[in-house]
């Protein structure tokens, strides 16, 4: 343990000499305080801190008037998921392969697939997701589902407003995930 970078000792021989046993950590102490250093600590440091405080009182407040105003997020912010459709055909991109469910460490995705028929073509492949549910009260927003998806059918969106009154309302169904969110979260602009 004494070999961790926090041990500043440059001499390995010295470090090993001060090592008492494996379970004892040698603590490096600052030099014992002198009179002048004590005085500096009592007044100098306090005045330095006050300067920062006084300087801030002159600035404009940074409070954001949520929910009237929203914090913009970075484009890669991992918020509530979205399912996608092909823009041309309108078919769902998700084929119900369950790979996202396999990847999810929180086990909060449930997929039940079914077979497409010519009369009822839902997705582009042979199969489609008849049930697609994400339990957002369990999701840890890790984004693994997005990475696992071979068809870019599920992506992490930007919405972070996900509170609700009951837990079951946080189970998002396929229809909810396919629909565009009503209010969009602002994205942070370049350089912001």
């Amino acid at each position, binding site marked *: 343990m004494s070999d961790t970078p926090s041990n500043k000792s440059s001499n390995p021989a010295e470090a090993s000499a001060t090592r008492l046993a494996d379970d004892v950590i040698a603590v490096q102490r600052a030099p014992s305080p002198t009179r002048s250093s004590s005085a500096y600590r009592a007044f100098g440091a306090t005045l330095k801190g006050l300067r920062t405080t006084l300087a801030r009182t002159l600035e404009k407040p940074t409070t954001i008037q949520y929910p009237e105003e929203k914090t913009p997020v970075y484009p890669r912010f991992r918020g509530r998921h979205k399912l996608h459709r092909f823009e041309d055909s309108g078919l769902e991109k998700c084929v119900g392969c369950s790979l996202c469910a396999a990847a999810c460490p929180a086990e909060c995705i449930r997929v039940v697939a079914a077979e497409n028929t010519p009369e009822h073509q839902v997705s582009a*492949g042979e*199969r489609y997701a008849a049930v697609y549910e994400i339990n957002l009260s369990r999701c840890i927003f890790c984004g693994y589902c997005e990475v696992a998806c071979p068809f870019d059918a599920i992506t992490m969106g930007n919405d972070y407003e996900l509170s609700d009154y009951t837990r079951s309302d946080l189970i998002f169904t396929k229809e909810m995930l396919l629909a565009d969110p009503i209010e969009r979260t602002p994205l942070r602009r370049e350089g912001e």
Partner: protein
Amino acid sequence: MPRPTPNFVTFEIDGRDVTAPEGSMLVDGAKYGDVEIPVFCYEPKLGQPVGACRMCLVEIEGIPKLQTACSTPVRDGMVVITGSQRVKQAQNAIVEFLLVNHPLDCPVCDKGGECPLQDIAYGWGAGRSRFIEPKRHFEKPLELSPLIAIDRERCILCFRCVRFSQEISEDYQLTFLERADSTYVGTHHGHPYVAPFSGNIVDLCPVGALTSSAYRFRARPWDIENAGSICTICPSQCNVTFSVRDDMKVLRVFARDNAEVDDGWLCDRGRYGFQAIHSPERITRPKVKEGGTLREVSWDSALAAAAEGLRKAGAGTAALAGGETSNEEGFLLQRLMREGLGSPHVDSRASGPIEREHARALARPELAAMVSDIDHAGAVVVVDSELQDESPILDLRVRKAIRRLGVKVIVVGGRPGALDPPADAIVRTIPGGAEAALGGLAAALGEVEPADGAPADRRAPRDSSQTPVGGLDERQHGEPARQGESVEGGIDDLSRRAGTSAESVRNAAAILRAAGPVVVLWGERLSHGARGGAGVNALLALARALGIPETEGAGLIEVPAGTNARGLREVGCLPGLGPGLADAPSAGRAATEMASALGDELSALILLGADPLRTHPDRAAWTRALDAAGFVVAFSDFPTEALTEHADVILPLESYAEREGTITHPDGRLQRLRQAIGHPGDVRPVWSVLAELSARLGVPGAEGFLTSPMVSRALFDAVPFYAGLTLEEIGGKGKRWQERSAAAAAPAAPELPAPGDLDAPPEPLEPENGDLRLGTARSLWSGRETEHSPILRFLAPGQRVELSAEDGVRLGVASGDEVTVARNGSSVRGVAALRDGLPPASVYLYEGTAEGNATELLNGEATTVRVHKAAAE
């Protein structure tokens, strides 16, 4: 053929010394040293390897070229290298080659996640492909049959499915069509591949080319949990795995290899019949009849009503246990009857009583063969049973024995069956003629010299040097006292009564005499009806004549009508026999006698998963009996005619995926049923319902049964020859009780009869006025699994009236004609089918069909019926 004992050889693989059985293929031998060699086409269940895929290439010192490990047997001192650069390159090349035409549409492929091609490409492939050319294309997905979808683009031409169809199930339907990279799997003329065992190819296919329509897209391997249990649909009692989703839904059933039971195969009824578990028609709440209509009630009031009605009837209660009843349920039922109600009238057999002595004799360990004895027998005799319909997995077992192990097969019975083509001899009788035929066979085996008339080439070698050790000749020389001649009338007379030729009987006897140990697979039908006792006697005489008690690896295996027939007998569900086949305090009535006594001496009836209108002979008598019964309590999973009209209390029955307990294979193997899914609706475990009902009726100790293992324990204590058995000992592969020391406690039985002790079988019925003798058969596809599983429904059979061609001509009936079959005022309709090889003046009908059930015409006696073309409606 005696069971081979393996010799072990030592060879070197990747620098380690490994000891493996001699003759095993390198792929298997390598496993003894924990070395994995990838394979696609190799599957030992399919017999000889074909070396079609080349995935298993390895380097063997001294051989310049790489060798296929799946078809190279291990030899002593062999040096094998599986990790060299050369081998790696070959493996990479094969994977790349297989993927040249492979679509790699894993996300939409049903095999994804459990696909050997995925695993092997990942583990042994190069990771990239150099091919940019277009791949081959087929129309996809297509129905290979209503049960199986085929995607030919994914096929890697490994031959497994074709080999299964050609060499295991021998239906010869699947084949490779075209050549080179146009090759594809298909059937001749594109007929749907419908066969009793077709679903096995889904398990076999190493890629997603063949998928089950019932499971297609239902779940991924990580969405399901697999739970092992037993299929209780038929007496084969195959070991299965249920794939369960969300703890409540069975999504598929596949084989759980047990070489002693099923060899790793399943029939399609077992594979797809699980859908009935989730049928919306299933009864899931108790119902009580009030004012003529059935109303759903709480368990408490249902049990109160049942207990009260039964208490009133008391000793006037009768009980029928259906074939799928578990040992525990049967045990509790007979205690409820005998101790709670004081009634001895409990039966698990549909078609008449079995004598106590016979029940005990048939349970004797020395007369029992185990399923794997079929593989190593000298000869197998199949008596009065169409295995493919009645115990399908035994059909595959016998086929394997014939094809791969050279076992001789003799078929005795009236109806031409699926085993006729490969059989070595056929003793074709008239319906009900098996008793006489077996007596004749026993007598012919006793003859010292084969009589004239037996074809010389078929005659057994007389030269004692050719007699197998422990074979029959030696023993029979020792006891020449009873010979065929001593039988009244002799072999010729017996053959006449069986409706067969003495020549075919002698011919069969000659084959048996020359063969080693003989396994007799006998259909329960032999023990049915008025001549049932005589039938069993003839069977026992044959067992004696074959020297079965003294011969290792010889024995009888029953093919019963009900799945757990053996277990139910042993736990006491027979009118005269209590647990352990001990004499019951008082003899009760058998099912057939209950029918006539109901409404008279008997006033109440318990149906535990039994439907007498469907499975018991003499439907008219049972209809009358159910009408007359004052009180009927029925455990049932589906509303049937018997229930809706006659039941006073209906208690929902568990499905086999919900059950816990044990059942007994016809060869004496106790197997464990384990609960795979939760109970739907209000369904409760049957054992607990029976225990509670018993407690209400004052059966001592019934309140003490809190779990199913407690009932099992009580049952093992009550049957002397199960003594000391535990559920752990039964485990996942089952345990034959004959192999435990407690088997010594099996009840003694009188000496087996000799041919001379048999009473003469009746004269064959001489049909008058163009009537025909009636025989019955069962179809694999009749039953509730077929009717309530949407995917199997297309297979549900109608009545089929099988006639010989001459009778067809004489009656002016052609195949496909609608005909009526009538006897004494009852009649059923069916579609005529003219078949070659049927005995003349006979007709065969199906028992147990939903429409036109042959039980309508049966009454336990040999009968004749009149067949004529139905008037157009």
